[in-house]
């Protein structure tokens, strides 16, 4: 962490912790405790499914909210408060600052997600009184959520390089929702008879981040095996997509006047 992006990342993480961002864990813990007690009392044979589904959905939703709402302010706040002025007068390149900010938020999200995973595991153990080998799929599902969050973070960072936090939030949310329904967009291209619409739908499908592929919550809840190929494909896809988005963000930010 002694590289310049590493130094910025650690400070970004420290900022999130001191701004009490991790307090969301309290709500998550309460949700999990409540769900475990409730499910233990009313569900018959599907306690595990309910807890895993609810837990993973909560991990995802909490993470997405954090990624977007913290992410949109990462650059904007530094410009507004002019904290960036002193920083960029040091031997720090703008892309290094951006990558550091990205790394810091992903680190925050990773710690947050890890702690939520512990809470989910505790709730699961409370309900089932055992851990099984097939529970490893939950870890894979969590890993995919983390990839998804990293991708969302890169998008918020990109938008916050040239627009307001409000618009950045709207753009990111819009892209996220469209990305979740990416297969449906592709299907429009398949069923349509108009060549223009087909071309458009196919182009949008390939350009949009495909968030649908990161969702394996149902498989994890039903203890289905997740193919290893999907793990590395998703990893590679997320890494490449994030790299492209951060490159675009760096290109925009490096040429922007800081007023």
């Amino acid at each position: 962490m002694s590289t310049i992006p590493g130094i910025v990342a650690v400070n970004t993480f420290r900022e999130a912790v001191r701004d009490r961002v991790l307090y969301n864990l309290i709500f998550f813990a309460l949700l999990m405790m409540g769900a475990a007690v409730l499910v233990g009392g009313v569900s018959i044979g599907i306690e595990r499914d309910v807890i895993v589904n609810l837990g993973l959905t909560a991990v995802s939703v909490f993470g997405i909210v954090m990624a977007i709402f913290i992410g949109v302010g990462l650059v904007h706040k530094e410009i507004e408060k002019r904290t960036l002025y002193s920083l960029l007068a040091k031997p720090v390149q703008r892309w290094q600052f951006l990558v550091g900010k990205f790394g810091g938020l992903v680190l925050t999200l990773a710690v947050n997600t890890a702690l939520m995973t512990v809470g989910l595991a505790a709730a699961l153990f409370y309900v089932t009184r055992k851990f099984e080998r097939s529970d490893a799929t939950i870890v894979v599902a969590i890993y995919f959520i983390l990839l998804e969050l990293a991708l969302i973070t890169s998008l918020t960072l990109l938008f916050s390089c040239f627009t307001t936090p409000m618009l950045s939030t709207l753009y990111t949310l819009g892209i996220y929702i469209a990305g979740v329904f990416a297969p449906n967009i592709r299907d429009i291209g398949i069923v349509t008879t108009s060549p223009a619409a087909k071309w458009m739908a196919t182009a949008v499908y390939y350009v949009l981040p495909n968030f649908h592929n990161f969702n394996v919550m149902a498989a994890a809840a039903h203890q289905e095996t997740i193919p290893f190929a999907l793990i590395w494909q998703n990893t590679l896809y997320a890494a490449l997509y994030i790299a492209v988005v951060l490159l675009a963000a760096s290109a925009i930010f490096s040429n922007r006047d800081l007023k």
Partner: protein
Amino acid sequence: MSTPAIQIDGLTKDYAVGFWRKTMRRSLDHLTLEVNQGEAFGFLGPNGAGKTTTLKLLMGLIFPTSGSARVRGRSISDVGMHREIGYMPEQPYFYDYLTARELLDYFARFFGYDRVEREERIRKFLERVGLAGSADVQLRKFSKGMLQRVGIAQAILHDPEVVFLDEPMSGLDPVGRREVRDIILELKSRGRTIFFSTHILSDAEMLCDRVAVLVGGKLQGVGAPRELVSMEIKGMEILFELHAGYTLPSEMAERATHTGERYRIVVPEAEVYVALEKLKICAARILSVTPLRPSLEDYFLKLVSGQKKPTQAREAMPAEVAQ
């Protein structure tokens, strides 16, 4: 001849304004300037003159529309140049969740210092700006003056060759101003180049080897404060004491002011000897005869008001100091 510390060549900055951003507003207009190594250089101008724009251009925070600049021979687009410079923005604001010590530690890391060196530098510079006792207080609890001091500490933490300070005295009480002045003088005594913007003219007059005056984005004059203001003598001030029983000639009595036995009179330079002869006849005891020169403030105000009248502005510009 050694490379100038700062070399600005035709630096211009236009901002797009308006809803469609079609109209351009010129904030800085072909600024050409050189600052020598080891100089304390004051950058003067009223609000909106382009001082902060210049500093932001030099720091790479904004990009020039045209022109170029070099610091210690390196282009301002070269981030490596930032190892040799320090910068304090106007009304500095820092991460308020950090303490002063943590902030300086954060910035010191960018220069690759190890832990021991960082700690040593932080201790030394917090002491120098008078914040040793508040090192572990979160910056959100700092006053404006304390933030200003942190700003100076972070700017000089790595012992840069060239220090840029944007309004370093603003927001400081007299003690704080004195401390900042001492820091600037100390940096200067160690051969560092200091480039600071200010509109506190007395500070510029006291600290600067040379000053530049910027009005409406245009350079109006550059030179030593004394050169800029010594073009004319406004009059001669005579201080004297008049003993009991003696009276001043009526034409002098009308123009003199006095407190007790001590009198003050201002006469045109050409009439000073005549006035002294008359005072001799009155048996006055001459205390001092001082030429009244325009202050830097007079010069500054002349340029600022002259900007509204282009012809006068050209006349006001001292030809011998324009670079």
